[in-house]
C-alpha cells in the first residue's frame, strides 16, 4: 500500500515534469526567448500567485499571456487599463434586466471573471480601479453590492506596466504591488531573437500554441509543489534575505542600512518559499535549494523594496541592491 502511494507520488512528479515541459514547449511556439520570464510565469501560476510584467511595448507581454491561456486551456480575459476605466468595468455590475415578470437586478460579470487575466498597462488605471483589483488578486473573489462572487480556480492575474510612459499613469500602491508574487522584466530581445520574432510573425501573428494542460492539472501541480520539503537552513536563508531588506531593524544587512528606504513584507518570504518549491520540482529535485532562493530573489523582491537616495546617487538599481543583499546573505549558506 505504501509502495503504491509512493508510486503515485512518483507518477505525479513525473506528470509535473511532463506538464511543465509541455507548457514550455507550447509557449515557445509563440514567444521567442524570454526563457526566464516564461519559467517564472509558469512558476507563479503553479504557485498560485500573480505576476507583474514590466517591459517596453512590443516585447511580447500580451502575446505571452495569450499563449499561456491557450496552453493552459483556461478562460482568458484581457483588461486594457485606461485612466477612464471604472472599477465596475473590471468587476462587473448589477444591471436591470426586463423579464416577463418585471424587472430584475442581474449581476453582469465583468472581464475579471476568467481564470487568466491580462491586466494591460495596469498603472494607467486610476487608484480606484486599481483598488478594485486588490480584492480579486488576493482573495480570488469579487464583492459587488454586498454580493460576493468567487473566481474559479486557478485564478491568475498577469499585469503589465509600461515603464516608459509616465505621463498619465498612476504608480501602483505598495499594497497592490505586494499582491504580485513576482515582478518580471521583459527585456528587449537579442538580435537573433528579434530575427526569429520577425521571421515567425511574418508567417502569422496569431498564437499557435496548443492546449497542454488544464486547470485541474495546474491545481494538482500546485498541491504537489506544496509537499516539497524545505531544509531549515534553506528556510532560514530565505527568511534572512527578507529580514535583511529592512534598514530599521537592529540586526540587518549593511546593504539595507545604506541603500534601502523600506524592506519587503512577509509575503515576500512566503512567495520565495512557495515559488522555490515549484522551481525545485521544475528542475527535477525533490527539495528546495539555496539556488532556488537566489534565482527567485529578484522577481520576488524587486517590487517590494524601495531604494533610497544613496542608491540613486550611486546609480544603483533595485536589482543591483538585491544583488548586494544576496552576496551578504550567501555567507549564511556556508
Amino acid at each position: 500500500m505504501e509502495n503504491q502511494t509512493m508510486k503515485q507520488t512518483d507518477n505525479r512528479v513525473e506528470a509535473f515534469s511532463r506538464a511543465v515541459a509541455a507548457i514550455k514547449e507550447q509557449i515557445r511556439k509563440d514567444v521567442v526567448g524570454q526563457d526566464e520570464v516564461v519559467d517564472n510565469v509558469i512558476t507563479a501560476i503553479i504557485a498560485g500567485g500573480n505576476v507583474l510584467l514590466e517591459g517596453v511595448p512590443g516585447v511580447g507581454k500580451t502575446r505571452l499571456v495569450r499563449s499561456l491561456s491557450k496552453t493552459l486551456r483556461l478562460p482568458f480575459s484581457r483588461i486594457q487599463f485606461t485612466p477612464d476605466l471604472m472599477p465596475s468595468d473590471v468587476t462587473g455590475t448589477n444591471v436591470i434586466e426586463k423579464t416577463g415578470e418585471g424587472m430584475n437586478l442581474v449581476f453582469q460579470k465583468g472581464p475579471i471573471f476568467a481564470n487568466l487575466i491580462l491586466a494591460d498597462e495596469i498603472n494607467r488605471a486610476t487608484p480606484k480601479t486599481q483598488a478594485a483589483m486588490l480584492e480579486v488578486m488576493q482573495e480570488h473573489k469579487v464583492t459587488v453590492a454586498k454580493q460576493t462572487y468567487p473566481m474559479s480556480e486557478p485564478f491568475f492575474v498577469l499585469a503589465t506596466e509600461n515603464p516608459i510612459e509616465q505621463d498619465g499613469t498612476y504608480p501602483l500602491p505598495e499594497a497592490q504591488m505586494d499582491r504580485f508574487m513576482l515582478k518580471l522584466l521583459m527585456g528587449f530581445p537579442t538580435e537573433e531573437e528579434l530575427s526569429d520574432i520577425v521571421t515567425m510573425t511574418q508567417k502569422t501573428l496569431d498564437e499557435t500554441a496548443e492546449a497542454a494542460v488544464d486547470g485541474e492539472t495546474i491545481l494538482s501541480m500546485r498541491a504537489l509543489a506544496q509537499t516539497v520539503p524545505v531544509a531549515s537552513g534553506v528556510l532560514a536563508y530565505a527568511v534572512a534575505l527578507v529580514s535583511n531588506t529592512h534598514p530599521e531593524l537592529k540586526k540587518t544587512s549593511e546593504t539595507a542600512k545604506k541603500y534601502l528606504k523600506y524592506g519587503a513584507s512577509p509575503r515576500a518570504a512566503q512567495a520565495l518559499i512557495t515559488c522555490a518549491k515549484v522551481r525545485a520540482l521544475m528542475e527535477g529535485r525533490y527539495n528546495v535549494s539555496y539556488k532556488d532562493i537566489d534565482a527567485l530573489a529578484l522577481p520576488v523582491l524587486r517590487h517590494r523594496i524601495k531604494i533610497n537616495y544613496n542608491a540613486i546617487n550611486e546609480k544603483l538599481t533595485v536589482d543591483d541592491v538585491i544583488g548586494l543583499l544576496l552576496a551578504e546573505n550567501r555567507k549564511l549558506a556556508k
Partner: protein
Amino acid sequence: MQQEFLRIYTKYMRRALIAGGAAGVLGGAAVTGALLLAFKLCAVEWGWYLYLAVFLAVAALCFLAAYLILLPREFALARKLDRVYSLDERVQTMAEFSADGGEMAVLQREDAADTLKNLPRRRSAGKAALASAAAALAVALFAAGIAVEQKRTAEPEPEPPYTVSAAALEALTALIENVEGDGALPDGVKELYTAALNALYSGLTGDDLSEELTAAYVQSTMYTISSSTIGWHTYDEFAYSLSSAYVNNTDEGAPLEALASALRSCAAALGDITISSYGALTALYDSLPSILYGYTETAGEALASAVTALDDSTLKTTLTLYSSALQNGLKADGTAACCDLLCEGLSFGDRRGEATSGNALYDAVYDFYYSISRYLVFYDAGTYSASKVTESLAGATSAGGDIYTLTVNVTEAMQPQAYVYCADNYIRNALAKAFGVEAVGYTPEDGSSLSASAGGDESGAGGAGGGGSGKELYPTQADIYNPETGEYTFYIEMYNDYYTAYLQDLLAGDEVSDETKAYIWAYLNSILAKRDEGDSSDTGG
C-alpha cells in the same frame, strides 16, 4: 539515518579515527622530538621513560583533539556533502526529514541516496600536502631529537685547595724560633706562647683550610697569647715591688751607685725603645749617679739639659718637674744627707697614704724613676728587642746589699712582666702582619683574668722577682677597689681616670699639684691594699 548517508557517515568516522591516531602519533613525535632536541642541546638530561611519558600524553591529547574535531555530526556532514559535491541541499534535507513519512519526503530521500551513491572521489590536494608537510616536520623533529648528542654541562674546575702562603708560614716559624730562643721570657709564658704558636703552625699546615679559617686560627692564637699578659699591671708591679723592697730592706742600706746602676740597667734592659728620646733618656739616667753622689751645679744643669732635650712633651714635662724636685732636694740635703736618710731606712710605708715620704730626695728619686719607668712601660713594643733585654739582664751583677738586691729584684721582677707585655704585643703584631689580619687580644675591659706567667718568686720582692711561675697576681680585672666609689671596678677604668687626671694637671699647670699627687698615691695604695688583702702568697707585705 538513511543507509547511504550512514555509509558515508561511517566512512567519515573511520577517517576521524585514523586521522586522530595519525595526529596523536605525529603530535607526540613532534613534541617529544622538540623536547629531545632542546634538552640535549641545553645539556638537560632526562630519562627515556620521561620522554615516553611525554610522547604518550601528547599523543593522547592530539588524538582526542583531532578525533573530536573531525568526528562528523550528522547535519554538519550533510551540509558539508551538499557544499562540497554541489548536491543542492539534497543531503541536509534528507537528514532533516529523515523521519518524515510524507511521499515527497520519501522520494526526496531516495533521490538524495541515489546522488550519494554516485559521489565522485575527491581528494583535497591542498589538505594532503599540508598533512604530508606536518608529518614530515614531526618525523624530522623526532629524528633530529634522537640523532643529536646529549650535551653535558662542563664540570666546574675544582678550586685549588686553599693553603697558607709560604711567606706567612716562614714568618710564623721565625717567630716561634724567636720565642723559643728568648731567654728573657719566663718559662711558663714561653711554654704557653710556643705551644700556642706551634698549634697554630700545625693548624695552618693541615687540610680543609680557608682564608676565613686561617684568620680565625691566627686571631684565636692572639687571644691565647694575650691571656698571659698583665701588661697593664707592669708598672703597678714595679711600684709594688719597689715599695716592698724598701719596706723589706729598710734595715740594710745599699750603695747608691748600685741603685743608679740598677736604674741604668733597667733602662737599658728595656731594649730598643722607639721613642726618639731614648738616647736622651739614657743620658739622663747616666747623669743620675753623679747627681746622687755629688750634686754639682754642672750635673744639675746636665740633668736639666737632658730633660729639655727630650722631644716627648709629656715625658719632658714630667721629668722637668721631678728633676727640679730632685735637684732641689739634692741641693738642700746634699748627697751624704740623702744617703743617710736612705740608709736610715725610710720606710716606704711612710709614704703610703701620703703625698710624700717627707724626704724630698727620696720622693724625687722615686717620682723620677717612677714616671720614666711608667712611661717606658707603655711604649710601643713593636721594636722591642728580646735579645737586648737578655743581654742587659745577663750583664747585671750582684754587688750585694739590699738596695742592690732590691733594685735587681725589682728590675728582674719588673722586666718579665714588662717583657711579657711587650712580648705579647710583639707576637700579636707579628702575627697580624704575617697573616694580614687584625691584631686582637684581651683587654682589661673584657673582664677576663690575665694569668701572669711571670708572676715572680713568692719569696721575692713583692712577688715580682725572678722567673715566671704563671702565678696569677690579680684575680680579675674587675677586682680593683676604687676608693672613691668604694666599689670594685675594672682596672683600666681606674687607671685611666688617674692617668688622665694626672696628665691633664701636669700639662695644664707648671707643677704637679698636691692633690694630684695624693690622687696618684691613693690609687697606688688602693692596689697595694688589695694585694695585701687578696693574695696571701704575695710577700709584698
